């Protein structure tokens, strides 16, 4: 990152030996509106800002995104979402759930060893102990 007050606007320059798949993916991410995810609810399609998403989860062979305003179906697989969502903010907490770490309001451990995560709006998620190491890595702990 180069900060220069003389620059009129934000510019991104990609240095690469060739136009590879990785470069294409990076370009796609930089496209205006590329960060938004289309959320389906009945016949309605709503562009979802990932920052507003509380969690994404798989249920009945479908993948859903829950925000503070409602739940939307996504046409992506969880592993695809994992790649698309910002890695420093979203983390998989169980086999079927990805959570926005900035929306966590409480975290408790029960006597029986169950880790319960509460998100904004009182949404409760159970963290798989198998994913704890990954969560710690994402948080840089």
């Amino acid at each position: 990152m180069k900060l220069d007050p003389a620059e009129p606007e934000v510019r991104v320059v990609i240095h690469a030996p060739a136009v590879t798949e990785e470069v294409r993916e990076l370009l796609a991410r930089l496209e205006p509106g590329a960060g938004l995810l289309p959320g389906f609810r009945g016949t309605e399609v709503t562009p979802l800002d990932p920052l507003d998403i509380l969690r994404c989860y798989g249920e009945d062979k479908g993948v859903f995104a829950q925000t503070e305003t409602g739940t939307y179906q996504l046409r992506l697989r969880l592993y695809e979402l994992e790649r698309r969502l910002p890695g420093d903010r979203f983390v998989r907490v169980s086999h079927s759930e990805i959570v926005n770490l900035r929306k966590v309001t409480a975290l408790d451990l029960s006597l029986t060893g169950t880790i319960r995560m509460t998100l904004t709006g009182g949404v409760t998620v159970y963290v798989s102990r198998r994913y704890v190491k990954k969560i710690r890595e994402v948080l840089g702990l």
Partner: protein
Amino acid sequence: MSERKELFREVLRRAGIGFPCGAAAVYLVFLLGGLFAFPVQEGNSVPVVTAAMVEQWGNPVTAALVQFLWSGLLGAVLETAEVPFRLERHTWIWSGVHFLLTAAVFSLVGYQCRWFPYRETWLCILGLLLLCYLLMWAVRYVGWRQDVRAIRKGVGLPEEPERPVWRRAVPYGLLAVGVELMLPWLLRVLDARDVPVLTGIFYPFLILPLFCFFSSASLGKRCRRLWLCYPVLCGALTLPCVFLLYNSSALFQAWVAAIAALAGGLLGTLLRQRTKRG
């Protein structure tokens, strides 16, 4: 691969490792027991099976082979003790089920191999097995707690609110009730009938003062004034067992408990003050 299949494979893998380890451990115990036995065994050979088992199977080789299979089975079951922790739900139930299974297999193997001529020995080892399970749980739980604390900090949540002093002291009280009201009865069951070493020597002169001292030191470190009640509680809690299990000649236990708790509490207070200054 589905989770169930993965778990099944893990059980088989661990059982495969546990079988030879279990068999080897049992023979090692026999060999070490034979080498350090007192009085020294006659002849050069060290027995690897009990005399009762040899008698049951006719000759020592057959008995040793049968014991190999049984001890291998025990090793296989013990090695899978960690598997319930891989389950995400009802871990404690599955861990309890595993303990019961291990206790059943252990009792069966012990009976088949004639390891325990006395019921007390068998009960004592079952108690140790239970202790190992509880310890395993405690170690895991502490690890999970540290993980949760780290994640809480990482996501910017406030530290857990500090519990009121009396709530911090409750576990110490419960522990004292367990050690001073229940443990003597358990030790009496396990004690030898001729010389009650556990209740006569170990409990009043070792377990009781050490427990009172260290638990009070810990309490004194955590609770500023409340620990002063602890020596009184420790002394008072010995009284029911003194009169029900022993007789008035064992009244010294009340003083032993109270003085050890007082000394421990003072040490805890000193440590707390030192930490504060540091």
